[in-house]
C-alpha cells in the first residue's frame, strides 16, 4: 500500500512540488532566523570578548543606581589619579586607561558619517603592541597627538586615505584630526554599521571634554594572581562612584543589552516564520483535499481490492510525510540564503548587523526539520480522514465525488463559534488588567489564530456572494493594470514576435524588433531565447497572434467568475491563505497610521516655535555646545533646549528631562495645574510632572520629589505644575526640572532637542543662518516643524518596511496556494477546456478565463483580509492609549492593487498550462 502511494506521488511530481513550496518557504524562514541570530550572536560575542582581551579586570565609573541603557544616561567618569594607585598594587602587571563615548566622523561633504542607527564609537587606544589592544592595524600607524585611526569599512565606503584631515566631533565642536592609520576590529568582518575612531589618550580626553578624567582602566594581573584576587585587591583602593569587575563579568555585562536584542530579534522573526507556516498549512490542506477529491475513484478501487480504511489513511499520511520531509530539507538549506537576504534587508533599512560568517547549528537543523514535518502532517490529517470515507462503490460510479464530511452541517455554527472564541481570547488579552505580558501575547496570538480559522471556515459560505461582489473589481482592476503594462510589456512582446516570426519585409520586421527592444529590452532577450529554441528544436512559437488589446473579454471573464463559485469551499480556503497575510499587513498599516497621526498632532500641539535641532539620526543626544552655537546665529529670538537623563525617584529608575527657562516661549503645554509661567520659574528646585505620574504617586503642586542622580547627588525638588501630555507623546520625561540644576548634578550633560524661535519665522535665510551656526556640529541638524515630524517618523517607516517585507513572505506562500489550486483545477477540468477550445475559444481567452478566476480568488482573500485587519487594528488601537484610530486609505488602495497583482501573477503558470493543452487530447482526457 505504501509503495503504491509513493508510486502515485512520483506520478504527480508537479502537484507534489507545488504543495511543497509552501513548506519550503516556512521552514526556510525558521532556519534562516536561527542562522541569522546565531551568526549575529557569535559576531557580537567575539566583539565583546575581543574588547576585553589581554585584561583580567576592568575598572569603570559607577552610577548611583543601575542605568537603563536608554535616555542617553551614562556612567560618570573618574579621576585619572586612580591609574597610578592601581599600577602600584602588588600583582598588577599592566593597566591601560581609556576614555570613550560617541564620536562623529565628518565626511567630505561636511555631514556626519552615520549608517542608520548604528553607533559611532570613539575611544582612546593603547599602543599597537599593547596586550590590551583589540584592533589590528591594516595600514599606516597608531595615532599620536591630533591624530585618529578609523576602521577599514568606513574608510572604504567614504574613500578616506591616510594623511587626510578629517573632522571629528565628540562633546565639543568638531576638531580636525589627521588620519594616521586604518584599523580592523578582531575577527569580525563588519561590526554592524558602527564607525570606529581611535585616538591617543590626551586627544580623547580633549574631544570628550574630560580633562584629567577616565572612563575605564583595563588591568592585567601577574601570572601568580588569580582574577578574583586581583578584583579584591583593586576593590580595596577604589574611590566612590567606581567599580571593578573581572573581564569575563564585564564582557557579559557589555553583552547583556545585545543579548536581549538578539533574543527579541529571534522571537520576532520566528513569529513571522510561524505566520508563514500557518498560511502554508492552509495551502497544504487545500491541495491535499483537491488531490484526494480527484483521486476518489482510485481510492475506491483500492478499497474494492481489499485495502482497509487504516491503509488508505496511512497511504495519504505517508505521502504527506514524504513531501513534508523533502520540503523541510530544501527549506533548511534555503534558510542559509534567506539569512543572507535578511542581512541585506536590515542593511537596506539602515540597520546593519555585525556578521562574521553564517553559523549552522545542530539546533537549527533539528527544529527546522521537525517543524516542517509536523506542520505538513497536521495539515494532512483532515484530508486523510476524509479519504478514508470514500466507499468502494465509488469505483464504478461515473463522476463520483468525495462524500461530505460528517461534520459538514456543523461548519457554519462551528465557524461562528470559533470566531467568537477567538475574539473573546483577543479581548481578554487586550483589555483584562493585571495579567503578565506573556499571557497577553499568548491570548492575543491564540485569539488571532482562532479568528483566522473561524473566518476561513465561514468564508466557504461567503465565497459565492463575495465572488459576485469582487467580480467587477477584478475585471476593471485587470483592465487598468493591463493598460498600464500595455506599452512596456504587451505591445513590445507582440512587436518582437512579429519581428521574429511575422510576415512582411525585412524593413518592417527589423523596425518591429527595434521598437520592441527599446520598449522592453528584457523581453527582447526572452524572444531571442525563444527564437534560438525554435531553430534548434521542433518547438514552434505561437504565431500569428492577435494584436494585443486590454479590453475585458466578457465571456472568458464570465466563465472564470462561474468557476470560482463551483466549489466555494475550495475557493474559500485558497483565499483564506491570502487573507491571513493581508489582515496582518493591514493591521500593521492601521497601527502605523494611528501612531503617525497621533504623533503629528502631538508635535503640532506642543511645538509652537519655528525650528528644532536634533541629532542626524533624530534621537541621539547632542552636545550642549551645539545649542550654544546655534544661539549665536543672527535672527534668533528665543532658543531653549531639553536635556535628558535618568534618575532614581520613589525607588524606580525614571527618565527625566531638564529645560531652559525660556522653554515656555517655544513650547506650549496643556496645564492641568499651573500655567506656562511654571516653565520659566522652575528655579533651583522646581519641577513639573505629567498628570499620569502625578496621580500614580499622589503628587500635587507643592509635593516634594526626592531625586537621586547617577552621580549620587540628591535633589529635593518640589512640584510646581502638572501638565497633560498629548496622547501622541511629549518630549519630556516623567519629571522635568531646570537645566541649571541638571548641569550641576549630571556628568556630561547633553541635549535631546533644542527649539528655536526666529525673527520672521521660517525663511530660507533663517535656515541658512542656523545651518552656518551649526557647521562645526555635523551631527546636529536644524529642521522646521514639518521636517522634524517627518524625521521622527522615519524610524517608524524603517520598522514598517521590515514588517511589510517579512509579511510579504506569507503572502508569497499564499500566492503559491493560488497557483496550486489553479493547476489542480486545470487538471480536473481538462475535458471542459478541450470542449471550450473546440467550440472556438482562443488560447488568449483561456488564459484570461483562468486569470479572472485567480484574481477573483485573490480579491476574496484581499477583501476579507483588509476588513479583518481593520477590525483587529481598531481593537488594538482602542487598547493602546497613545494611538488614535485612523484609516490608512492610501495603503489600503495599494494593498488592493497588490492583491490584484498577486492574482495575475498566480495565474501566469496555470493559465499557460491550460492554454497549451492540445484540444484533441484534452477532449479524450479522463
Amino acid at each position, binding site marked *: 500500500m505504501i509503495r503504491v502511494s509513493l508510486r502515485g506521488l512520483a506520478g504527480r511530481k508537479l502537484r507534489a512540488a507545488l504543495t511543497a513550496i509552501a513548506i519550503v518557504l516556512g521552514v526556510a524562514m525558521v532556519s534562516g532566523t536561527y542562522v541569522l541570530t546565531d551568526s549575529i550572536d557569535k559576531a557580537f560575542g567575539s566583539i565583546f570578548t575581543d574588547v576585553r582581551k589581554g585584561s583580567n579586570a576592568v575598572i569603570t565609573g559607577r552610577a548611583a543606581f543601575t542605568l537603563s541603557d536608554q535616555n542617553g544616561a551614562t556612567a560618570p567618569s573618574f579621576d585619572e589619579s586612580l591609574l597610578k594607585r592601581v599600577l602600584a598594587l602588588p600583582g598588577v602587571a599592566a593597566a591601560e586607561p581609556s576614555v570613550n563615548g560617541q564620536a562623529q566622523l565628518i565626511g567630505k561633504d561636511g555631514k556626519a558619517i552615520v549608517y542608520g542607527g548604528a553607533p559611532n564609537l570613539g575611544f582612546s587606544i593603547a599602543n599597537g603592541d599593547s596586550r590590551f589592544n583589540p584592533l589590528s592595524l591594516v595600514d599606516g600607524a597608531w595615532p599620536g597627538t591630533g591624530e585618529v585611526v578609523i576602521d577599514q569599512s568606513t574608510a572604504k565606503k567614504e574613500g578616506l586615505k591616510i594623511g587626510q584631515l578629517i573632522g571629528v566631533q565628540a562633546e565639543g565642536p568638531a576638531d580636525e584630526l589627521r588620519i594616521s592609520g586604518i584599523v580592523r576590529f578582531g575577527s569580525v568582518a563588519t561590526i554592524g554599521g558602527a564607525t570606529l575612531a581611535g585616538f591617543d589618550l590626551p586627544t580623547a580626553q580633549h574631544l570628550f571634554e574630560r580633562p584629567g578624567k577616565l572612563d575605564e582602566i583595563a588591568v592585567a594581573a601577574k601570572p601568580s594572581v588569580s582574577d578574583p584576587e586581583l578584583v579584591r585587591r583593586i576593590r580595596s583602593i577604589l574611590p566612590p562612584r567606581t567599580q571593578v569587575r573581572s573581564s569575563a563579568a564585564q564582557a557579559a555585562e557589555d553583552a547583556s543589552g545585545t543579548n536581549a536584542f538578539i533574543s527579541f530579534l529571534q522571537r520576532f522573526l520566528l513569529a513571522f516564520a510561524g505566520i508563514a507556516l500557518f498560511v502554508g498549512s492552509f495551502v497544504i490542506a487545500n491541495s491535499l483535499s483537491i488531490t484526494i477529491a480527484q483521486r476518489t475513484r482510485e481510492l475506491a478501487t483500492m478499497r474494492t481490492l481489499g485495502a482497509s480504511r487504516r491503509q488508505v489513511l496511512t497511504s495519504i499520511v505517508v505521502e504527506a510525510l514524504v513531501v513534508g520531509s523533502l520540503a523541510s530539507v530544501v527549506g533548511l538549506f534555503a534558510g542559509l540564503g534567506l539569512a543572507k537576504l535578511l542581512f541585506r534587508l536590515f542593511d537596506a533599512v539602515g540597520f546593519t548587523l555585525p556578521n562574521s560568517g553564517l553559523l549552522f547549528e545542530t539546533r537549527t537543523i533539528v527544529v527546522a526539520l521537525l517543524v516542517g514535518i509536523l506542520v505538513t502532517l497536521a495539515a494532512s490529517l483532515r484530508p486523510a480522514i476524509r479519504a478514508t470515507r470514500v466507499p468502494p462503490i465509488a469505483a464504478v460510479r461515473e463522476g463520483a465525488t468525495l462524500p461530505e464530511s460528517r461534520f459538514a452541517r456543523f461548519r457554519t455554527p462551528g465557524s461562528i463559534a470559533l470566531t467568537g472564541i477567538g475574539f473573546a481570547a483577543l479581548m481578554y488579552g487586550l483589555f483584562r488588567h493585571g495579567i503578565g505580558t506573556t499571557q497577553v501575547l499568548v491570548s492575543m496570538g491564540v485569539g488571532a489564530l482562532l479568528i483566522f480559522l473561524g473566518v476561513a471556515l465561514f468564508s466557504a459560505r461567503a465565497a459565492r456572494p463575495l465572488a459576485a461582489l469582487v467580480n467587477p473589481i477584478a475585471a476593471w482592476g485587470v483592465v487598468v493594470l493591463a493598460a498600464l503594462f500595455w506599452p512596456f510589456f504587451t505591445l513590445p512582446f507582440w512587436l518582437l514576435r512579429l519581428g521574429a516570426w511575422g510576415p512582411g519585409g525585412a524593413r518592417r520586421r527589423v523596425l518591429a524588433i527595434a521598437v520592441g527592444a527599446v520598449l522592453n529590452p528584457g523581453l527582447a532577450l526572452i524572444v531571442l531565447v525563444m527564437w534560438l529554441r525554435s531553430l534548434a528544436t521542433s518547438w514552434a512559437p505561437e*504565431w*500569428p497572434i492577435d494584436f494585443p488589446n486590454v479590453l475585458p473579454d466578457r465571456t472568458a471573464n464570465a466563465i472564470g467568475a462561474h468557476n470560482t463559485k463551483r466549489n466555494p469551499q475550495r475557493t474559500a480556503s485558497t483565499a483564506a491563505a491570502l487573507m491571513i497575510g493581508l489582515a496582518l499587513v493591514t493591521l500593521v498599516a492601521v497601527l502605523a497610521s494611528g501612531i503617525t497621526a497621533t504623533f503629528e498632532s502631538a508635535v503640532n500641539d506642543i511645538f509652537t516655535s519655528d525650528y528644532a535641532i536634533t541629532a542626524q539620526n533624530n534621537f541621539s543626544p547632542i552636545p550642549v555646545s551645539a545649542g550654544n552655537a546655534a544661539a549665536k546665529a543672527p535672527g534668533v529670538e528665543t532658543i531653549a533646549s531639553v536635556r535628558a537623563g535618568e534618575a532614581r525617584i520613589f525607588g524606580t529608575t525614571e527618565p527625566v528631562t531638564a529645560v531652559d527657562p525660556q522653554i515656555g516661549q517655544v513650547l506650549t503645554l496643556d496645564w492641568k495645574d499651573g500655567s506656562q509661567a511654571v516653565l520659566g520659574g522652575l528655579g533651583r528646585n522646581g519641577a513639573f510632572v505629567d498628570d499620569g505620574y502625578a496621580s500614580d504617586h499622589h503628587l500635587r503642586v507643592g509635593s516634594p520629589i526626592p531625586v537621586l542622580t547617577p552621580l549620587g547627588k540628591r535633589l529635593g525638588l518640589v512640584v510646581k505644575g502638572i501638565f497633560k501630555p498629548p496622547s501622541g507623546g511629549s518630549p519630556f520625561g516623567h519629571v522635568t526640572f531646570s537645566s541649571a540644576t541638571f548641569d550641576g548634578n549630571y556628568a556630561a550633560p547633553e541635549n535631546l532637542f533644542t527649539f528655536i524661535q526666529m525673527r520672521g519665522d521660517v525663511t530660507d535665510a533663517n535656515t541658512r543662518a542656523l545651518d552656518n551656526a551649526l557647521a562645526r556640529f555635523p551631527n546636529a541638524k536644524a529642521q522646521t516643524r514639518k521636517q522634524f515630524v517627518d524625521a521622527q517618523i522615519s524610524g517608524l517607516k524603517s520598522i514598517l518596511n521590515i514588517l511589510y517585507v517579512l509579511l510579504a513572505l506569507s503572502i508569497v506562500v499564499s500566492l503559491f496556494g493560488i497557483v496550486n489550486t489553479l493547476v489542480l483545477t486545470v487538471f480536473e477540468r481538462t475535458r471542459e477546456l478541450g470542449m471550450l477550445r473546440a467550440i472556438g*475559444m482562443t488560447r488568449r481567452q483561456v488564459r484570461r478565463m483562468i486569470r479572472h478566476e485567480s484574481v477573483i480568488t485573490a480579491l476574496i482573500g484581499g477583501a476579507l483580509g483588509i476588513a479583518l485587519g481593520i477590525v483587529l487594528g481598531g481593537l488594538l488601537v482602542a487598547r493602546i492609549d497613545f494611538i488614535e484610530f485612523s484609516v490608512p486609505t492610501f495603503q489600503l488602495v495599494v494593498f488592493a492593487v497588490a492583491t490584484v497583482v498577486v492574482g495575475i501573477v498566480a495565474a501566469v503558470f496555470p493559465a499557460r498550462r491550460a492554454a497549451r493543452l492540445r484540444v484533441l487530447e484534452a477532449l479524450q482526457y479522463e
Partner: protein
Amino acid sequence: MDALQGVSLEVARGELTAIMGPSGSGKSTLMHILAALDRPTSGYVTIAGTRLGKLGDTEITKLRRQHIGFVFQFFNLLPMLTAEENILLPLSIGGRKPDKAEFEDLLEKVGLADRRKHRPSELSGGQQQRVAIARALVTKPTVVFADEPTGNLDSKTGGEVLELLHQAVDAYGQTLVMVTHETRAAAIADRVLFLADGRIVRDLGQVGEDEIIETVRAVAPH
C-alpha cells in the same frame, strides 16, 4: 502504421454523412482531421474554401468558431451555466449576439423552450444532448461534426436525438458529419462511409438499416 491512408473525401453541402467502421478503423481520426482538431502528416483539408494546412492556432480556432459545430458523446456542457447560456456559448466566445427570433425558433425546435433556465445537472441525458446539438447549430456553421452522439443514451432518447439531427439537415440544410457504430444512426444518413484499416472501403448513398448491417459484417476483419 498510419491511422489513415489515401483517404479522399468530399462532403456535400446540406448532406448528412455517416462514418462507420470497427474500432481502430480510423473513423475517429478521420473526423478529428476533418474537424481541424488534428493535423494530417500529409494531405490537406479544405473547409468553406479555406485550406487548413498552415494556419496557426488562433486562426484555426477562429475557423472552428465560424465554420464548425461539435456534438460530443459525453455532451460536454458547462455545469454552472444554464441550458440557454450553454447554447449561446459559442456566440458569446466569438463576441457575437444571437438573433432573438432565430434563437427562440431554435429552442423550440430542440424542445428546450421550457428548460432554458435549467442547469445540466437538472436535465436528463437526452435533454443535455439536445442542448449540445442546439449549441452546435446556433452559429450556423458550415459543418457540424457529431462523435457518437447517441453513444451515451438509452435507445429511446437516442432515437429522439437522431430525429433531431435528421431534422436539422432537412429543415436548416445543415451539413452534418457523424461518426457512429450504431447502424440505426447510420440509417438516417444521406451517405454512409465505411472505414477499415485506415481506408474507405465502401461509400454508399442512403441505405436501409439491413444493408448497413450486412456491409458492417462484410467489412469487419475476419
